[in-house]
């Protein structure tokens, strides 16, 4: 089972960008969200960019968009003003931006990119690994919830009851994975003080600089307006 937010390998422009560029684009979009009084344009822009440059139509992730409708409505109803609507759309734009990032970025590319930027290998690998295994935990959580339903449980304590099997399962799996990684020399490079190699060549390309420039221009334009 594949979740909506999971990375799918493609050759779109967004997929080919360096993960660090995409982080900068996400940060830029967040800045735009707070700088503008019309965040719906940011939301529309994010949807369009993911569609045109990422090759992922909004219909592919419509359940996420459908979830945002009650969120925006609830925030609007709390404030009962244009401000409320702006806050709701800001949250929606941020949600779509993060979704676009996770759908177009391979977690292990992100790990390599972070490592290239000076983040210690163990930490960058840990981040990549956590992102890679999040969908597995998500799937396991839905199995456990179904197991509760199979025993007739409908109460509000689902999260508390799910925690034990989910936590123990994650611990067991992480122990096994750590062992499997050590068997394949995970610590060898650090212990022997040799340079680790990577199969993928993650580096800034002209495309990344162009994306940086466009984002910067959009932010400046928003500031001037």
């Amino acid at each position, binding site marked *: 089972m*594949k979740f909506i937010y999971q990375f799918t390998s493609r050759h779109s422009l967004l997929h080919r960008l360096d993960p660090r560029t995409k982080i900068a684009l996400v940060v830029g979009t967040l800045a735009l969200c707070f700088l503008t009084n019309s965040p719906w344009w940011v939301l529309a822009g994010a949807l369009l960019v993911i569609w045109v440059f990422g090759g992922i139509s909004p219909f592919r992730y419509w359940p996420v968009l459908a979830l945002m409708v009650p969120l925006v409505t609830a925030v609007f109803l709390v404030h009962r003003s244009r401000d409320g609507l702006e806050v709701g759309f800001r949250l929606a734009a941020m949600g779509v931006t993060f979704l676009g990032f996770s759908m177009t970025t391979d977690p292990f590319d992100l790990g390599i990119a972070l490592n290239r930027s000076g983040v210690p290998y163990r930490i960058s690998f840990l981040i990549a690994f956590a992102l890679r295994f999040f969908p597995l935990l998500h799937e396991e959580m839905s199995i456990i919830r179904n*197991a509760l339903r*199979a025993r007739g*449980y*409908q*109460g509000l304590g689902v999260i508390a009851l799910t925690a034990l*099997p989910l936590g123990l399962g994650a611990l067991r799996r992480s122990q096994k994975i750590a062992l499997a990684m050590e068997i394949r020399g995970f610590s060898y490079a650090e212990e022997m003080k040799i340079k680790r190699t990577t199969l993928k060549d993650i580096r800034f390309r002209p495309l990344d600089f162009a994306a940086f420039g466009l984002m910067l221009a959009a932010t400046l334009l928003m500031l001037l307006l």
Partner: protein
Amino acid sequence: MIRLDHVSFQYGAVRALHEVTHEFSKGDFVSIIGRNGSGKTTLARCMAGFLRPQTGSIDIDGRHVHRMRPRQRVQVIGYVFQNPDHQIFCETVEEEVLFGLQNVGVRGEAARQRTVQILERLELDTKRELHPFRLARGDRQRLAIASVAVLQPSVLLVDEPTTGQDPVRAREIMDILRDMNRQNGTTVIVVTHAMELVAEYTASIVAMSAGRIVLSGSAREVFHHAAESGKPVISLPPIVKLGMKLQMNPVPLTVDEFVRAQ
């Protein structure tokens, strides 16, 4: 009787079930077999009501599975997941078995009696005070079965119960399921890859491939058709292959049958 009528299900763009139509008889002991990704577990989860098919319907004794209330559904159809560790929520073995009963409103002496009976039957009565995670894997699998079987559903779906079990434990689990089928008349449907056990224990087989039921019938019929078609939809048990090579008629399903035919 379980009736599947043109059931289709897809995960995003991936179609897992294509227009599946089939009837499972009441009191049957059936195996659903097929390669990984053939749609076995998806079909079982649709039948248990966890997944709602995009098209088609599933009825049990004339009642639409997806229209039943959850508490009503668990007393009609039970589902045991592959990994027992996903089904452990309580501090002791006894509490684990009681958990489902309390959820459906069985309390007091009735709940205690049913718990004692199922623990004795599955030989877990001496371990009732232990934490479930302290049990061996085979015992945890039996506890998972006990926790669902105690609700006395008329249909019990079991997803790959013998995976990761040694041959002795695997046989014990199949013995338990056969006893439940014979003694209580429970319809047992097992999703499995263990072809030797399928041949030995189950009365009928449903073979799946690419989201469709490609063969169904008695074990002998299905193995015969699978061998005749020449398509590697299922892997025949070695004793069946040997019987076919020796052109035995009927083809033996177990070693005992083979020996008796000699």
